[in-house]
């Protein structure tokens, strides 16, 4: 039991760490790799729950989640990167030291008393709420700090991963068709967002959102 708890802590920490990595890496392929590891951590977390509860429904959801988040999405993003030959990611609005400073501040805020009510929801896993809330803030920061449309897309997906991890710790179980509905929504979001990322590249010749100035004109 203790080892299992340690392992779930470890998975939550992987989620957290990967958001940190996503915030500082330069290469787009590394960004996608970090997203893959984060998604994989979520899949493992879900598999453990499916195994513990001997739940076929959870197992089905795990399989769909694995397909959507760990197989389809990374492959799709890698294909966009290959096609556009833009392996090196664009810069951030804040430089690396400032970004790290902002991440530390966000983590401190997540660990502050403001979010203490959330600890009550997770009495069996103390302090995990700070890690999870910190991951959410860092994902949000990723969405708006990097100048690449692809990074923004990964920021939203990372935010989604973090929220899914929280839902697992909170013990949310919905009916199978609702969970599948939620994952289909995620799947279509990935398709739509990838299509738009591709369209941005076609129209602007880059993923850089700073080059998107047509609305200002």
């Amino acid at each position, binding site marked *: 039991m203790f080892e299992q708890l340690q392992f779930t802590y470890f998975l939550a920490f992987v989620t957290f760490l990967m958001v940190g990595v996503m915030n500082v890496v330069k290469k787009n392929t590394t960004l996608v790799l970090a997203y893959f590891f984060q998604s994989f951590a979520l899949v493992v977390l879900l598999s453990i729950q499916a195994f513990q509860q001997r739940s076929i429904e959870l197992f089905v959801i795990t399989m769909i989640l694995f397909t959507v988040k760990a197989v389809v999405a990374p492959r799709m993003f890698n294909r966009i990167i290959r096609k556009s030959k833009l392996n090196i990611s664009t810069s951030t609005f804040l430089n690396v030291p400032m970004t790290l400073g902002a991440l530390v501040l966000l983590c401190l805020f997540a660990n502050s008393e403001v979010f203490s009510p959330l600890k009550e929801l997770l009495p069996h896993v103390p302090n995990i709420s700070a890690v999870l809330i910190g991951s959410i803030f860092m994902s949000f920061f990723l969405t708006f700090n990097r100048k690449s449309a692809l990074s923004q897309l990964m920021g939203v997906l990372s935010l989604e991963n973090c929220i899914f991890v929280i839902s697992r710790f*909170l013990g949310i179980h919905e009916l199978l068709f609702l969970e599948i509905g939620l994952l289909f929504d995620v799947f279509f979001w990935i398709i739509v967002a990838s299509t738009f990322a591709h369209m941005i590249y076609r129209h602007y010749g880059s993923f850089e959102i700073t080059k998107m100035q047509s609305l200002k004109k």
Partner: protein
Amino acid sequence: MEIEILLVTPILAALGIFLFGKKSAIVNAISVVAATIELIVSISIALHVADLKFVGFTSFFAFNGLGALLLLVVALIGFFVTVHATGYLEAEREKNMLGVKRIKECFILLRFFLLFMFVVLCAQSPIMTWIAIEATTLTTVFLVSLFNRDADIEAAWKYLIINSTGLLFGLLGMFLFLAQGNGLSTTWADLIAQTSHMNPLLTKFAFAFVFLGYATKMGIVPMHTWKPDAYNKAPLPIVALLSGALLNVSFFGLLRFSTIVDIVVGHMFVQSIFMFFGALSVVLAGFAIYTQINYKRLLAYHSVEHAGIIMLGMGFGGIGIFGALLHMIYYALSKALLALASSNIALKYSTSEIHEVKGLVRALPVTSILYAIGFFVLMGIAPSGIFFSELYILLAGFGSNLWIALLMLATIILVFVGFIRHFFDMFFGEVPEGISVGERSWIQFVPGIILTTIILILGVCAPSIFGPLLTQSVAQLKGIMP
């Protein structure tokens, strides 16, 4: 049986357009037939709900009073938008802005957009509500970028990222609500039944996240930044739906949670949030309207302002709730009228800059009258419906929070002055060179004339026509009725 027909019709219509829509005439015919069926079924559902009959399908789809009321509004706007869009898109095709394939895609997405709004209104599960709301983003994002120009893609991307991020926070809030029960809540009723176990502090926390999500979708300040760009670039018939229908549907999702919070922590918490963000939206939008130079963005800020007014009505409580409900109906219909009339202006002048639109009265005689009526109804000129709804809200405000009510009144006056300024700029003067005089086709103004007639009738009779549904809605929002 009605809910099944309501939910299946858009799917069959989209399938029909996909399979047989080789010519735009077939696409138009299928779309108009589907919109007519949806409207008839919606009227039937509203009548049954008004008679306190249960209208549901399994335990996951059922209409309450407010849901049925908004369904009627959404289906009505959906019908007029569909009919108007047939002419509008055909005109854009003649200008080589779109091909038949794109028109086909537009009508398929339009049907799915309406379908997901119907689902939000009847979904009995919080997760299903969230899925449907998110699905409206996914369908409309392609509608925003329909013309596929650089700026359209930019606006659509902004719309997608901001709304999706906001809604993810909404999802987090929803999980925090569900986790306070037994984690197995599948319906709104389950969630309400578990309110006695909920922690007040956590509930406030959860609602803050939910508010962030749904208010982003509504375009409440400061989460409104996607709205001016999306409205500026989306085809105007779609703006009619985004503004008139989707705003109300998103607020409906938020109100579902607010009733739960009211039970757990009392009315004051939600009312304070609604008053603060409502006032912020009204004031900022008021100034933006006054200084606006683009009539499409004007529609966007007007939408922000009215979202704020509706929120203020709910925040003031008492008769303000009744006023806010009336405002949701009147605003949705009159905004749809203004957007449809604006689409004719955009087609004629091929610009969205106010200073480039001159001599509207001569260039588009019927449209200009419709635009003026929409204009003055939205301004709340007596005896329009919005005059009464704003009066109810202000009266509630004077009793609840005098300063915010005065602020709202001052902003309404500012918006009126700003609007009048734009009105004279656009309506009078010489028609610019190269702009032909006269309406393009009857299909572009007949839906507007019928909609105007409905708005004027409802302006006086809405409380009696919608009486039972309004009474049920107020009771539900006050937690008296399930």
